[in-house]
């Protein structure tokens, strides 16, 4: 199959799916709930802290709710990816589709592009929402935020490719969903546990806690390579430090991560075939 034909197939498939996503109400309701939760749990809580303290030094309080929102959205889209392929295989749609001018790369590429386009829509809504939040609170909408918007696209790219990889690796829809959610919760849980233990004062820490900290810190070295969240958090640190080189490195490593997973997905997909 030529590159032009493959590109055409990707475009047609992705267009069909993005239309279906945009015409449904699921995405809009999800975004509303996510933004509402972000405003209540994060923005409102930061506001209350400022009102209680009178003066506070904070990293832009819009960042956390934004990270929360795009994290949920990326997980949602990753989950959709994890569902998509195994469901189509389960239903037999995949087999029918492959009788047409579609090959493995076109199919995987279309799935990936669809989710990324869906995320661009999410980003537009997120940008509007957090811009309005910054206006009503005067928290500020800084240039850092633009950097985070771009970065989040790459986080989603990692999440979606991760979801696609799981989807092609498992033959059952339920298994791919459970594995995807299990791993995402594990990555999130790990990040939270690591952050909590690092925030504990070293003074008076029991040897047991020190050993737990050593284990988590060593595990982090591995997690930095496999967890999509780690790629995003490295980029976020680079944004706050104003370190352009690290920021670009973070974007490049996200692309490499996604690329490797997509190539691996195509390879596994080819090996497993399109039949149920």
């Amino acid at each position, binding site marked *: 199959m030529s590159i032009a034909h493959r590109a055409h197939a990707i475009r047609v498939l992705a267009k069909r799916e993005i239309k279906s996503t945009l015409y449904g109400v699921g995405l809009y309701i999800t975004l509303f709930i996510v933004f509402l939760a*972000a405003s209540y749990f994060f923005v409102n809580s930061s506001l209350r802290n400022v009102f209680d*303290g009178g003066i506070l030094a904070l990293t832009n309080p819009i960042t956390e709710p934004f990270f929360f929102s795009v994290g949920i959205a990326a997980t949602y889209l990753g989950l959709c990816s994890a569902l998509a392929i195994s469901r189509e295989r389960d239903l037999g749609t995949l087999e029918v589709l492959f009788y047409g001018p579609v090959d493995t790369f076109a199919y995987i590429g279309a799935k990936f592009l669809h989710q990324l386009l869906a995320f661009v829509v999410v980003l537009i*809504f997120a940008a509007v929402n957090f811009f309005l939040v910054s206006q009503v609170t005067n928290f500020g909408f800084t240039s850092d935020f633009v950097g985070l918007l771009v970065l989040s696209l790459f986080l989603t790219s990692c999440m979606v490719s991760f979801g696609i990889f799981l989807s092609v690796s498992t033959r059952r829809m339920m298994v791919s969903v459970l594995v995807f959610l299990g791993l995402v919760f594990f990555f999130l849980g790990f990040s939270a546990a690591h952050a909590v233990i690092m925030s504990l004062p070293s003074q008076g820490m029991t040897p047991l806690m020190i050993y737990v900290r050593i284990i988590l810190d060593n595990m982090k070295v591995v997690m930095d390579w496999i967890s999509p969240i780690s790629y995003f958090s490295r980029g976020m640190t680079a944004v706050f430090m104003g370190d352009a080189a690290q920021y670009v490195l973070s974007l490049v490593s996200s692309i490499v991560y996604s690329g490797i997973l997509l190539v691996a997905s195509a390879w596994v997909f080819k090996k497993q075939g399109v039949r149920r």
Partner: protein
Amino acid sequence: MQLMRSCRPGSLWLVPVLILALSFAAFAQEGDQGPSVEQIQEAARQAAEQARQAIEALPDPSQIFTQIDPEQLNQGTPTREYQFVYSLSPWTGVQFGGTFAPKGVDTMFLMADVTSIMNAQRTDVYYWPITGEYMANWFEKRDEVPGKLQIEQNGKVIATLERVDYSYYYPTGYGGQQTLLLGEEAIRTYEDYQNRINSYYDSVSKYYDAQRVWQSTMDKILAEVRETGVPKKPDEIPEPPRQPQAPRDFAYQPRQAFAVNLPAGRYTVKVIDDEGNVVEGSERTLQVYDARRTGVGFGVIPEHKWTRRFQSNDPSDTFYLDGTRVFYILPFSAKEFNYYQYNKMTNLHKPLEAEGTRSAWTWVHFDAITKAKLQVLKDGQVIQEINYEPFYVKQTPGYALGYEIVKFDPENDPTLQGRAPTFEGYRVVLAGDGSSYELRFVDENGNVLEGSTRSVRSVQRPGNSLYAVTVVPLVVGVVVFGWRRSKARKGSASENA
């Protein structure tokens, strides 16, 4: 010497002071019985000698922090091992810390581009499980390993260091600012300090002598006044002698060690003996690290909660205000280091210290910034320049709780005379009218200090509009849904037609 074994770092400065106080107390006790001039001079001479001995006995920080406490030895029977160790007094940015690298500690840490003290010694080492650290018996057994310190990087010898004289100097007294002096300067400063201490004791001796003479003159005058009933004129009463002031500064007796100052990098260090052989157990890795970021740390004291001060080290921090606020900024030059490397540097003798923190970072405050000006900017224009000033916290008199922070100006406020300022810093008053400001420090030449800029915003109370803005996607969804339905209806109507 016995006193020094059990001493702790913070209490060391008390030694000369204690000796002085005891000497004078002893003198005062004898004074009632009328000591002779010779006795006074002898007491002062003894006090000077004791002070000198105490100063000379002050150990290096590496020994102070890791010396076996005699009490610990009575609490168990730890196995002591006579072994090669590197003792280190690394510069932490605030002071020279103390640790040692016993056998088994392969990597040592030092801060880049500053001089730290390192020595190769043999001593008795044992593990003390209660505190989970290695301790050394420096005072009973401490043998310097002769030789040179060879530093290699990537297999190439980049430096071979000889031991040099070094001393710590405290210009404002022990516990204050600490300076490392090397070579001739260390010896010269210590000799100067010793000379001043000696002349101080001489002055003390002369003072008490003069005091005796003055006292006897006063006794005569008083007796005369009692007899005649005629008071003396003020100019007939002699001025009492002035008590001499002890030197406030403090200098360690010079010792010899390796002064290491390297750029960031990974090195191998080893001690080469006089015959050119590597001393067994001396080959270790030396990790010299640098700061990830340099900036200005803001200590912030809100006027309405002056005891609840907080810090802002990260230049990406923004100050958020609720309404008009008055606050005081206490700036420090700051550097961000890897937490593990920074803490391990002074805790090599504690195997578990800082373990599991290799991915963490910490800001370390160095010197206070006092000479810079704080600029307040609005819309890119400097609207105010603030100087560093002393302040005093006055408690409100009476039963009601409260306080007032005033500028420390004892000349115009008699209630502040004889007092010291509570803190020194920059007083900032910013209006909470929804404006945005920028704070930054500039030096004498008007250059902005790196990492000293902070944004300030006064937040608004958004009420329900905070939640109202979240309905945007829902509205768009409803519109899309409605449009799709109407399109579908039109489609089915045209099909039916």
